């Protein structure tokens, strides 16, 4: 009897482990990808890539060419013009690319031209669960705030993931009597700290330093502001696609954001995200929130700079996903989609992704589990303990609801209109309410042209909800 029970236990155990191992395929290693790609030796792939990335990624490109025999014709596109160049090429049918990278916030526009990778992922054993939970929605279109659908497609794999975090100068905190290891927990405390730190010579250089550095340059103004929206729980639209940015809470959010200017450097409207890093590092102001940047953060002195989650607003801690996260994709018209896909997998495989993320040059943020939990990676990642911050953010997304970035074809136009109106508010050309009302009016006109108010058009899928797709966050 005992022997029978023991045998059945062993068989059950074997059966369970067999099921478990087949449920999640092992991630392909670099060598496995290279071996699969060798069958395509001799072909040429046309690759469009951000100019900022192309230099540092050259090592990986050369290795892929050398080991597979596939030639890569690389075309560098400046970041600021990436969207225009890609879209002009796609719309006119002149884009020769097999492979391209794009910023997540442009997904609404490029999605129509990107191949659905669901089948290739299944064929080559890509596990969505390898992507860190915070960045999993990046893969799909549409699942971000936008039109509801039961049939989302995977249109890319993440190449870079980042989110807004909070930075503070511990040395300045200490000089003014604040605890250097405790950042403000909420936006009220942020204002108190900013007032205490403002317009003082905090480093003895004879010049005044300031409490806070808000991101208020016109280009990308919506990016800095969307963190504020998130903190106040302001959505982009109501369910019927009427703009919600100028709701009472929306106006309150912008008014609060405008009030931070009184503790800010006078040239706050010049501050784009990289110049904010430079100014912060130089010591111009004591606090800021900004993207996690593997290129910029290593320039900070960890002895005097702290990083944490942004302070909570009335709605909670903001997780801003309207950020610079990027994806690799294959074009629908590619004549060599499998070869292009294997190049994509090569760039995102454990060995290469770790190398690219650690190099810091290309500003590639960690977005895969196999990288984040690699001990070597943890030992070296951009800033002491910063990998723990990424881990914490990913864990918290299981319980809290981050704002989904807007991802519809009109996204770029809507964002630019909001950038303009926010910039007018930042320079006191308009009040907060006037700016948001004007933006909302233009948004409504844009949505009319996009057919979103037509009978039968899908309703708006709100930014503050867990996506309907099973497993995006929870697995």
């Amino acid at each position, binding site marked *: 009897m005992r022997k029978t029970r023991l045998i059945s236990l062993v068989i059950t155990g074997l059966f369970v482990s067999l099921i478990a191992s087949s449920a999640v395929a092992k991630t392909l290693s670099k060598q496995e990808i290279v071996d699969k790609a060798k069958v395509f030796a001799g072909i040429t792939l046309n690759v469009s890539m951000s100019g900022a990335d192309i230099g540092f990624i050259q090592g990986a490109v050369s290795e892929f060419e050398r080991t597979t025999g596939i030639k890569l014709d690389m075309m560098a596109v400046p970041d600021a013009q990436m*969207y*225009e160049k890609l*879209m*002009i090429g796609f*719309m*006119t049918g002149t884009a020769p690319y097999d492979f391209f990278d794009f910023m997540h916030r442009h997904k609404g*526009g490029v999605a129509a031209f990107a191949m659905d990778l669901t089948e290739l992922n299944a064929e080559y054993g890509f596990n969505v669960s390898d992507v860190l939970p915070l960045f999993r929605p990046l893969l799909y279109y549409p699942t971000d705030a936008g039109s509801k659908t039961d049939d989302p497609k995977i249109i890319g794999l993440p190449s870079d993931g980042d989110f807004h975090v909070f930075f503070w100068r511990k040395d300045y905190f200490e000089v003014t009597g604040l605890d250097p290891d405790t950042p403000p927990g909420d936006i009220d405390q942020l204002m108190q700290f900013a007032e205490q730190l403002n317009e003082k010579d905090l480093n003895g250089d004879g010049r005044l330093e300031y409490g806070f550095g808000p991101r208020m*340059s*016109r*280009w990308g103004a919506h990016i800095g502001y969307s963190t504020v929206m998130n903190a106040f729980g302001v959505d982009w639209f109501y369910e019927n696609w009427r703009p919600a940015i100028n709701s009472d809470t929306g106006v309150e959010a912008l008014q609060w954001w405008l009030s931070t200017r009184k503790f800010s*450097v*006078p*040239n*706050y*409207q*010049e501050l784009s995200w990289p110049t904010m890093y430079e*100014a912060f590092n*130089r010591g*111009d102001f004591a606090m800021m929130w900004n993207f996690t940047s593997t290129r910029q953060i290593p320039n900070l002195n960890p002895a005097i700079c702290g990083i944490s989650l942004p302070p909570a607003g009335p709605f909670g801690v903001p997780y801003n996903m309207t950020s610079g996260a990027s994806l690799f994709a294959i074009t629908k018209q590619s004549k060599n989609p499998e070869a292009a896909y294997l190049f994509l997998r090569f760039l995102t495989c454990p060995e290469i992704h770790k190398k690219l993320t650690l190099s810091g040059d290309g500003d590639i943020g960690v977005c895969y589990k196999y990288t984040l939990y690699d001990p070597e990676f943890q030992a070296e990642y951009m800033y002491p303990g910063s990998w723990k911050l990424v881990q914490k953010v990913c864990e918290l997304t299981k319980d809290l609801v981050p704002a989904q970035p807007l991802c519809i*074809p009109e996204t*770029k*136009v809507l964002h*630019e209109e909001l950038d*303009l109106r926010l*910039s*007018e*508010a*930042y*320079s006191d*050309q*308009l009040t907060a309410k006037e700016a948001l009302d004007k933006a909302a009016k233009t948004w409504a006109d844009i949505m009319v*042209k*996009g057919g979103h108010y037509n009978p039968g058009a899908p309703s708006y899928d709100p930014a503050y909800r867990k996506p309907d797709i099973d497993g995006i966050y929870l697995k």
Partner: protein
Amino acid sequence: MARKSSQWLAYIFLLPLLAVIGGLIVYPLGTSIWIAFRDFNPMYGRSAFVGLGNFIQLLSQERFVTSITITCIFVAIAVPAEFLLGLGFALILYKNIPGGRYFRTIALLPYVTVPVVVALTFRILLNYRGGLVNYVMQSMGISPLAWLSHPRLALFSVVVADLWRWSPFATLLLLAGLRSIPNNIFEAAEVDGATAGQKFLWVVLPALKPTILVILLLRMIGTFKVFDLVYMLTEGGPGKATDLISFYIFQLGFRHWELGTAAAASYYLLLIILAITIVLLKRFKPT
């Protein structure tokens, strides 16, 4: 017979030029006119004929009207300033000062500098905390200014950058104009007892009239089209302070994909430039 065949030969030799003109000028011009009368958005596949709809719609758009206004202000300040500065440098260089030849070369360097480099250089110079301009001001006890963040100062900064780049162009043309004035006219004026000021007003300026017309026309057209400086220095901000019409058309056409409206806006710009050109030509008509 021989005359006819040589005529045909002439047309054959003209064909390549006509092909280039047709392909690079006539066809795009015709297409842009066609687009201007359509609700043309390739992103959504819209291409419906709307007649004057785009033109009428633009007049009711606050941003279009504002950008035209700001551009006109920019042109009204920049063009005369470039001319006056250019004239000043030309008069200095006209005199044979020691080292004038080298100074002439250096003075022309801004004109040959790539516009993007000019914009980036000024962005660094005018930086609030680290820029040379504020550094010098602070060392003189003057408070620093937010050159690129303050709405009024931002437009002024773009004017200065444009001035720096294009004054040498005016200098070059005016210097050539000055050198072409025959000496005997100056001698005659001296014989008549004209002072330096009178010589300048009644001899130099009238003689330079054709050159002045060319400078004003070319700079007026160029300044109305300024894009690179705005794109690199301020991106149209802060707010709408430097939202010049060319930047607005670029955004409309290549970011919003409203190509029909963008084409209509560019034809409005063309009409404004044509109107000013006609006024200038009439004003500077030789008597």
